[in-house]
């Protein structure tokens, strides 16, 4: 990984969390950071971050029932996934740089 990769990874994360989309960027940022989100979206984002393999069809149905569209669910998923990955990237780079 080069400095260029890190810049591209952070730029892409920023696009996913704050770029144009169908889901409020504040919800996307909350999903990425693990901050509380009301309703099914909070449950779903937590699952994506912590154990995405446990997601089931009913999770998506619950989001649909609360009025979330497929593009919004996609953005919620991506935001939570990029947030989880960013935590790990930051921790790895801090370790290499000698930071606790």
């Amino acid at each position, binding site marked *: 990984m080069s400095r260029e990769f890190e810049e591209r990874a952070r730029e892409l994360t920023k696009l996913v969390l704050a770029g144009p989309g169908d889901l409020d960027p504040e919800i996307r940022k909350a999903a990425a950071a693990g901050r509380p989100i009301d309703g099914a979206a909070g449950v779903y984002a937590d699952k994506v971050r912590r154990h995405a393999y446990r997601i089931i069809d009913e999770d998506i149905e619950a989001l649909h029932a609360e009025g979330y569209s497929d593009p919004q669910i996609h953005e919620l998923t991506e935001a939570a996934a990029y947030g989880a990955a960013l935590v790990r990237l930051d921790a790895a780079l801090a*370790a290499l740089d000698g930071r606790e």
Partner: protein
Amino acid sequence: MRLASMAVPGSAWARLQLAGLQLFAGPAVGEAAKAWLYRPAWGKPFSRLLTESLRSRSNAWSLGERELFAAFTSKLNTCSYCVGTHGAVASSQLGQHTLDAVLADWRTAPVGERVRVMLSFLEKMTLRPDELGPSDAAALTAAGIERSAALEAIQICWAFNIGNRQADAYDVAVPSPAELSRATGFLLRSGYRVY
């Protein structure tokens, strides 16, 4: 796919790209591509970062070792799709026994110390990132892993911590052995040019 609208890409160009991938690479690659083609402005740069991490021309790690890191990260995240597809490529390079041993217990697997120490770092990065610290970096250095090599493995781990979540959330179908073999051949022939 769990999102019904993800099954068929929205634009004619994306549908054409998907058709090409399914024709040449088969469903193992085509199904994952649906997630990336759903929103190309996000999916395309991600796909490039992921594939670049695996086909780097540097000598830091072999192709088999890179795919081993991908499959290992995917196993830690319990992502069956990614373990299958990237484990198949790793197995084609390192052998099934080595892959199976690493996925069962990297501590006792028949790999060199350099790979073993890198796996230890990637395990902590994936499962317990809060515990990573300077002593983990020192262990890499002691094993002869240069910073640039560590960064390349970290790039793979970052990409798969996203890709695993995408595959499981969207319920990308786990390929059959025949589909895995076809996908492995395509990835090796094409140099991972899936997008």
